[in-house]
């Protein structure tokens, strides 16, 4: 079946602009994660959704970052007033949510965001 998809694959924007990044999880996966990977670093957790609600948003760096998942499927990561330091690859992952067993996170290809 189809894996996790993310659009756009690349986004170039100017400092101060607003951007939206989209993630389409694997069908039936109720858990959805956003990570950010800066150059030379590993992925860094941003936010985790279980269904429509954000179960853990402790990784969002500041209030310019916001994410939604209104119908429990597609998620959008929104960044306001972008800064050059926001340039990174934004990764999305999804998983099932079965209790008492491991739920592998499947990663998408990422969106490379460049803020000029």
């Amino acid at each position: 079946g189809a894996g996790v998809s993310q659009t756009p694959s690349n986004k170039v924007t100017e400092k101060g602009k607003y951007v939206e990044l989209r993630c389409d999880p694997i069908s039936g996966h109720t858990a959805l994660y956003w990570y950010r990977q800066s150059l030379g670093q590993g992925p860094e957790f941003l936010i985790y959704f279980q269904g429509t609600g954000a179960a853990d948003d402790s990784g969002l760096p500041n209030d310019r970052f916001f994410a939604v998942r209104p119908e429990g499927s597609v998620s959008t990561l929104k960044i306001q007033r972008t800064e050059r330091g926001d340039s990174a690859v934004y990764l999305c992952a999804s998983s099932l949510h079965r209790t008492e067993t491991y739920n592998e996170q499947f990663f998408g290809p990422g969106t490379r965001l460049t803020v000029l």
Partner: protein
Amino acid sequence: AQSVSQHNHHVILSEAASLELGCNYSYGGTVNLFWYVQYPGQHLQLLLKYFSGDPLVKGIKGFEAEFIKSKFSFNLRKPSVQWSDTAEYFCAVNVGSYGGSQGNLIFGKGTKLSVKP
């Protein structure tokens, strides 16, 4: 806060050489441990995982890793690398009880492996 350290930034090996990539984590409680691989131009993929039981775990493509609790380590090994193993390797930790992958992964910075044919 929990953290993951990967000791090598870039490792260069010839084919058939043995590989060991170091990973240490900082957390005193129950952890779940993972190695992910990212081949050039591809997504992150799970290579292997450890939750409990036998501390020596085997993954795909001949990789294995050993959990040493006293050393807070989870080193990745392969006896004989191939050119196709050229990739970036990430160690990751998830804090929680058995099967507890209901939350986020904490990744190391990654190790680039280049295998010369």
